[in-house]
């Protein structure tokens, strides 16, 4: 699935979910015939609207689905969901599949300076991330068949509310967590080699993603400051051109080049902040997800080891044996699930990051090509034939 920036352009929202989903489908085709042909579910998140109740104000997003899957009664659905609903979905998926890598959600709102929770940019950034989240889930060979996922995509608001109440209660979930923590405090005997390697990778990867995120944000900042100075620069040539006769045209030529430079810089900055920064930030969150997955896998192993040890030190007890066997199975399943999902995740990460790096490099090439073009055409119109020939000779020799 490619990074989708088209909704940012303010084009009018189409009415039906299918027309909307068609739009996304066309963009998904870019990724390759293979994906487009095998994809049988298309999801779009859009149309944020604020809802006001007596107690609170929040945003509702439209979630539009188009699918040919037989488990779905209909081929098109349109529902309204809020951020809390997404949180609920993700936590159910994690609970049911503790060692699968569930794509992260955009963060909860953090009070950062003057940014408001209902700031347009914030909502748009969140909307894009939610869109990505659902599509990532839909691409997952196991998670996309989750019952909770189906209900999330299809149930009307009130039905979703009742479905939510069915899950394990708050208290029982607390109990599970407490047990897990108690077991893990004991510590692992030893981590199997391949998971030890994974653990190390996850920590390094997390550091690298944080660094990438920071460096990129710093570049955006520097670019913005550069753009500010460029805006002060072109008028100085323009004012001087007004004073001169012979020099007026060449000076105005410089003005047009600096202005072009500014325009292209704005494009660059836009690309960085709309495409590269969100992608890197998403993988920073992925790294946190991976850490959590590793912890849960460790806990499962720890639980098994704890019970197993207890068993070995007591007399044989049918119940205890059954419990330990169960835990052993659970551990094996968890490990296999993780192993399977690990290579899928790696492949997906490589594809995603590769694609944003490539598009960034392309954007930068485009920047320099456009500026160069303007420089050349300004030179063409402002310099005499002899001067041009001189320049061309220079080009021949040096460029």
């Amino acid at each position, binding site marked *: 699935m490619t990074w989708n920036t088209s909704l940012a352009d303010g084009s009018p929202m189409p009415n039906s979910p299918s027309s909307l989903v068609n739009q996304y489908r066309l963009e998904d085709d870019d990724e390759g015939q293979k994906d487009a042909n095998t994809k049988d579910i298309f999801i779009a998140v859009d149309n944020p609207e604020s809802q006001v109740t007596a107690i609170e104000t929040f945003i509702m997003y439209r979630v539009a689905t188009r699918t040919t899957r037989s488990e779905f009664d209909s081929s098109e659905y349109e529902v309204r969901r809020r951020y809390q609903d997404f949180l609920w979905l993700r936590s159910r998926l994690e609970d049911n599949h503790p060692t699968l890598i569930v794509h992260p959600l955009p963060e909860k709102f953090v009070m950062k300076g003057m940014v408001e929770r209902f700031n347009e940019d914030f909502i748009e950034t969140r909307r894009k991330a939610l869109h990505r989240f659902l599509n990532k889930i839909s691409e997952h060979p196991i998670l996309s068949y989750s019952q909770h996922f189906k209900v999330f995509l299809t149930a009307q608001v009130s039905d979703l509310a009742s479905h939510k109440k069915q899950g394990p209660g708050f208290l029982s979930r607390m109990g599970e967590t407490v047990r897990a923590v108690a077991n893990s405090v004991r510590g692992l005997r030893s981590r199997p080699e391949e998971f030890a390697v994974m653990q190390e990778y996850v920590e390094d990867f997390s550091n690298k993603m944080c660094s990438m995120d920071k460096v990129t944000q710093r570049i955006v900042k*520097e670019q913005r400051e550069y753009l500010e100075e*460029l805006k002060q620069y072109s008028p100085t040539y323009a004012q001087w051109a007004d004073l001169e006769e012979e020099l007026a045209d060449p000076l105005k030529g410089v003005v047009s080049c600096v202005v072009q430079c500014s325009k292209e810089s704005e494009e660059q900055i836009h690309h960085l902040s709309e495409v590269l920064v969100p992608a890197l930030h998403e993988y920073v969150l992925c790294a946190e997800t991976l850490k959590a997955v590793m912890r849960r896998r460790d806990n499962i192993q720890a639980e098994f080891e704890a019970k197993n040890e207890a068993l070995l030190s007591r007399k044989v007890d049918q119940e205890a044996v059954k419990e330990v066997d169960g835990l052993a199975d659970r551990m094996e399943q968890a490990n296999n699930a993780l192993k399977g999902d690990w290579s899928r995740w790696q492949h997906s990460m490589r594809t995603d990051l*590769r694609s944003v*790096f490539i598009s960034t*490099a392309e954007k930068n090439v485009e920047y320099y090509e456009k500026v160069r073009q303007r*420089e050349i055409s300004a030179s063409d119109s402002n310099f005499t034939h002899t001067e041009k020939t001189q320049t061309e000779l220079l080009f021949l020799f040096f460029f």
Partner: protein
Amino acid sequence: MVEEGSTLLRRMEICVAEAEKRSGKNAMSMQETFTVYLIETRPMDAVAEGHNPAPDCLWRRYSEFELLRNYLIVTYPYIVVPPLPEKRAEFVWHKLSADNMDPDFVERRRVGLENFLLRVASHPVLSNDKILYHFLTEEHGWKEVVYETGFQAKADSRLRALSATFRVRNPDKRFMEMKHYSDELQSHTSQLLRARARVADRLYGVYKVHGNYGRVFSEWSAIEREMGDGLQSAGHHMDAYAASIDDILEEEEHYADQLKEYLSYAEALRAVCRKHELTQFELEMASQDLISKKQQREELSTGIVRTFSFKGMTNKLFGQEAPEQREARLKLLEDLIAEVVKAHIERAWVDIQRFKEQKDKDLREALISYAVMQISMCKKGIQVWSNAKECFLKM
């Protein structure tokens, strides 16, 4: 314009070849370090005949160049005298050292000093000056010769006059326009130079931060299998990109130097226009004097006193020269000053035209080379990012 075979530069090859650090005791007997510049000269006919004689050379420091220039300004007030490279580094962006001993600054100053000598030695009027010739050929005793010309006294009065305020009634319109132009030129070029320095500073920041990508890609490549090679080589390109800005901005300094030269030239142009105002003012004062003397005589003869004049009274009381004699003297003075004004206008206007043509030509060239630099910078950028893209494709 330049007459055939008339300027010094046609007879003599001049260059400022090197710079060296020296230490010595200054006027207050304190130890100081300074830079001296090697001036090499060779007779042009020897060079043209294919001989390769060793050049004559001598060492001069910046203050001696300043002395020469001050002498020329005072001695040729109707000439737009070529400027020296800046005394201190101005319009500095953060990386560029503002230290006068910095090797890059010294090198750029060497180029500027050579440029100054070439301009002066090819000027139709200035190139004939004996003091200039001695500057280029006599290492020792030159300073004494300069001071002996007594130009220092003229320099002081010139300084006073240029900063004084006075109202001129009928200045030459062309010169007033030129003065206005020189003010505007100074203002625009200095604004431009300031803005350019800030842009350079920011651009430097953008490029250098990309160097961090180099570091992170390299570290990241160590933990990846399939992506490792692609990341590693992309990292190298990011390092190359970050490093490329140093050369780019160094080249741009040359462009800035060309603009700085004309910033200083604007000041020289203004001085010529001011000199016109001064001479015109003196003329008007002399005429005014003459008129008031005539008035007094009339008043004395008719008995009607219109304005009180102390001189008039003392003259009446003590009877100095006969009024006719004084009037004749004043008329002579007025005529002399009028000659001065006329001569200055004629000679200055010729040089101002020469300057204008030179300025247009030089600045066009500077703008062309700026465009060429920008194009080359874009080409490098295209190359680096295309290479980086190739690396990402391999990821």
